[in-house]
């Protein structure tokens, strides 16, 4: 049984099931409810099988290298290479898609009668299926085909809610950016093909000596831009805050939790595995990109009051943190410190898994709130904790996980990344440890600012009094949505409590890479889940923290409530308002909460404030009729990066356009000229 589950056939069941699910949903074009049921159950089944496969594979399986029947195209072969790293990513994808598909059961009811659910199901299932193919493909062209399916399917889901014009714009921007990225990826693979004569990853790795160093640097640059666009590093992130909010919520969750990690997976695969040995500046570049992305991501998140855009910017921040771990791993490996490199790799893989879990949890809770309130603007929420208490609890768990508060899972992965950076400061000599000091500073600042941002988000959405009348009509979400959120919250707690076990598994995954084949890890995990970094540099123990804190809270509750003074009463009264009636305008708003931080960082964020005043009498200008204040953040990327690029491309295209002048004599002369050139080149 076990051998069947970890065999290639078992893996191929997964994409097959998704293809059947996708094509099958088209049969339910006429019946929305049946289509919803079909989509969710088949996606859940396929993801469940993926979970079973990946878990057994990671724990017991051997590396799988196989290919399907040879195709008629000469360079394309449907070859798969599933090693433990790919299996880990298959695990993450399956885990998140189970819960997101379950969520879809309740969520898609809002799209009945408005849009075609069957079409959504088609794209959704193909999207999920292609994700599995992306992380397991071993041929560059096959990989690109799967990548394209993933991008196109997600584009159609981004523009699914097409009555809203901003979603269409967001989809177009997403499409353009993802194709620019894909173009760079194709260039990188073409360069590798030119020197190694093959598109197979295994062969490229073996023949790497044939590639000169400057070509490797070019491949690095192109791959970084290409996969970085998908991952959302700054400054290639401009599509993320528009596209993730536009999509339906479970798609946002999968895009943010899983799809951007496919970029990270390919970066690990290329830089850590295929293109080794690498020069030092590659790792330093990735570390610097991680520093910039994490800091800027959280600063932009603080300025947002659209809840999904806020979560999208936090994805950028967490990708920055993952790149901090990956960059330090690459630097350590080049400087001949493979144990530390393994530590860095384990840290970034752990954070990848954790981020997938808590980001999906946050997106699903946000979607539940948006469903009830029909708006994404945080300023119109308030007091929802009384109407949607379970959603509030799940959002609270997600916020505590993403702010790296013990005992949830985010804390342990950030602890590992911190320890990697600390080791870097200690072990490296003076030129390089300065950059690690900057990295620690940025990670510390990021953690603090993320905490502030989630206090703002949770407080503005759920606490205090309602800020708009719509809140009073809010109802708790249906059971399927709550089950999905609850499952992810449970995952967050489990990954935190059993972080020791997860680290043991990640060690096994890390040492399976050829770069680390003989490396002993610095981490030891005791039987009681206590994690130690040798030699006694630091220890942390998840169950201790969890149990001690929980026990303390319960003991204090018991002591204070039951023992000290039992005759007290608690009266429910009015908020102390100094005698004024409190109206919703008197509460703190999300914008007001973050305004202090925005003003402190105003040289980076460039906030602007414009006032427009209308007077009753334009001549005397004494009594105001209306006073409008517009607060905006300056957009640095469009102004300095994309607009100039656009202008150059536009200008060049206008020049080139003169060739196509409509004059048939000119066209004939072009043919004549091309003929002459071809004849001369043959001679």
């Amino acid at each position, binding site marked *: 049984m076990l051998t069947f589950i970890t065999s290639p056939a078992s893996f191929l069941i997964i994409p097959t099931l998704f293809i059947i699910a996708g094509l099958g949903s088209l049969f339910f074009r006429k019946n929305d409810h049946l289509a919803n049921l079909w989509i969710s159950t088949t996606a859940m089944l396929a993801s469940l099988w993926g979970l079973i496969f990946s878990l057994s594979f990671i724990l017991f399986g051997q590396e799988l290298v196989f290919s399907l029947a040879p195709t008629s195209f000469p360079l394309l072969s449907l070859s798969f290479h599933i090693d433990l790293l790919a299996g880990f990513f298959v695990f993450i994808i399956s885990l998140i898609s189970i819960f997101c598909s379950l969520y879809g059961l309740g969520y898609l009811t809002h799209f009945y009668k408005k849009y075609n659910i069957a079409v959504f199901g088609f794209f959704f299932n193909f999207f999920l299926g292609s994700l599995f193919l992306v992380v397991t493909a071993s041929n560059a062209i096959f990989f690109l085909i799967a990548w394209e399916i993933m991008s196109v399917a997600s584009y159609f889901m981004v523009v699914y809610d097409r009555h809203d014009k901003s979603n269409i714009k967001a989809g177009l921007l997403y499409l353009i950016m993802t194709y620019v990225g894909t173009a760079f990826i194709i260039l990188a693979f073409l360069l590798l093909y030119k020197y190694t004569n093959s598109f197979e990853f295994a062969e490229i790795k073996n023949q790497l000596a044939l590639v000169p160093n400057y070509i490797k640097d070019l491949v690095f640059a192109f791959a970084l831009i290409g996969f970085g666009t998908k991952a959302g590093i700054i400054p290639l992130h401009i599509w993320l805050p528009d596209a993730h909010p536009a999509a339906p919520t479970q798609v946002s969750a999968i895009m943010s939790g899983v799809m951007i990690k496919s970029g990270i997976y390919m970066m690990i695969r290329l830089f850590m595995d295929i293109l080794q040995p690498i020069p030092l500046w590659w790792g330093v570049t990735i570390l610097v990109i991680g520093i910039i992305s994490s800091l800027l991501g959280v600063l932009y998140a603080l300025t947002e009051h659209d809840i999904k855009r806020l979560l999208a910017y936090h994805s950028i921040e967490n990708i920055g943190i993952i790149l901090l771990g990956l960059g330090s791993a690459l630097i350590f490996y080049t400087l001949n410190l493979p144990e530390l490199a393994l530590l860095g790799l384990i840290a970034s893989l752990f954070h990848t898994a954790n981020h997938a879990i808590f980001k999906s949890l946050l997106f699903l809770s946000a979607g539940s709130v948006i469903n009830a309130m029909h708006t994404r603007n945080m300023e119109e929420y308030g007091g929802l904790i009384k109407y949607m208490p379970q959603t509030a609890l799940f959002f609270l768990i997600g916020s505590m996980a993403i702010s790296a508060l013990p005992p949830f899972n985010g804390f342990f992965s950030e602890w590992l990344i911190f*320890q990697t950076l600390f080791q870097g400061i200690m072990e490296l000599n003076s030129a390089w*440890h300065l950059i690690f000091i900057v990295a620690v500073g940025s990670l510390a600042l990021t953690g603090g600012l993320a905490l502030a941002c989630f206090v703002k988000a949770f407080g503005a959405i759920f606490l205090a009094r309602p800020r708009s009348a719509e809140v009073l009509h809010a109802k708790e979400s249906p059971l399927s949505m709550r089950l999905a959120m609850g499952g992810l919250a449970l995952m967050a707690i489990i990954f935190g409590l059993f972080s020791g076990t997860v680290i043991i598994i990640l060690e096994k995954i890390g040492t399976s890479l050829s770069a680390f084949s003989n490396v002993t890890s610095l981490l030891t995990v005791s039987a009681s889940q206590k994690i130690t970094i040798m030699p006694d540099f630091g220890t942390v123990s998840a169950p201790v923290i969890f149990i001690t804190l929980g026990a303390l809270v319960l003991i204090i509750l018991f002591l204070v409530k039951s023992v000290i003074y039992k005759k007290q009463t608690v009266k429910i009264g009015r908020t102390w308002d100094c005698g004024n009636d409190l109206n919703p305008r008197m509460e703190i708003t999300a914008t007001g909460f973050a305004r202090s931080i925005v003003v402190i960082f105003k040289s980076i964020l460039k906030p602007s404030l414009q006032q427009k005043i209308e007077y009753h009498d334009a001549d005397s200008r004494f009594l105001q009729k209306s006073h409008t204040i517009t607060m905006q953040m300056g957009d640095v990327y469009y102004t300095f990066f994309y607009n100039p690029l656009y202008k150059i491309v536009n200008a060049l295209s206008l020049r080139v356009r003169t060739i196509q002048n409509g004059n048939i004599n000119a066209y004939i002369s072009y043919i004549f000229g091309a003929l002459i050139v071809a004849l001369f080149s043959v001679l």
Partner: protein
Amino acid sequence: MNLLIFIIQLSLVTAISPLCTGIIKKIKAHLQNRHGASVFQPYYDIWKLLHKDEVISRDASFIFRLAPFIIFAVTVFVGFSIPLFTSFSNIFQASNILVIIYTLAIGTFFLALAGMDSGSPMGGFGSSREMTVSALAEGGFIFSLLTVALINHSTDLFTIASANLFDFSQSLLPIILAFSGFLIVLLAETARFPFDNPATHLELTMIHESMILEYSGKRLALMEWATSNKLVIFIALGANLFFPLGLASEATLVAILIGLLAFVIKIIIFSVAIASLESSLAKFRFFRLPDLLLSSLIINAVAIALIF
């Protein structure tokens, strides 16, 4: 003997923190040429508050009701995980730098949420300011503790506290720099001058107090106690990590007594320093505080760079 150390370590911070607050208030009063309340006055305050009824706003949710217990539990937990009077620990192994910092952040998280929960405008602003100060102070906090961790090659607090005097004098300059950075973070996190005035009545100048304006009765007692606990925790961290003198290294009665005496002396020195600072400075304008916190970050970064 081990049992005695266990019991004292569990309860020392919680038992002694109102006394520390009382000492600071007493010194401030004497500097103002008056007698002031007795040093045990905070104990009477907490006792009285535990016996009063409560009034809770109808806009408040379970976060408001649960937050004081969580915050107090967090400070008790951190209180017995840090080196107080011994340089070894026979309690649970939760004394890593990052565990301490982020566990204290749980307290800040719930405090800020509780401030926003009742919907009072003053509470919301207090939360906003507190999160701004705390977000910027966390960098300086991690860095200053990191300096001593790197000097001692371990991020475990008890290993740092058991450093001997020779290592200490070797890296004097980084330690002094990191200590001055740590002092700024201490004042920021415990809501002292120049960040916050703990005795003010003007809501426009409050950071910490405005978040607890809505609390009454036993919950208020726990919040006040948690604030005093946090003060003693930071004093203990500052004293025992940067100047690890007088800590007991074996479990004999003499060593324990010397350790306790050293701890009390350190608290008194810090209290005098804080009280004199409060009597000679004015509270800074809010937008001058980020400059102070970012300079703490930079001082600490320089300290780390100087170690190697």
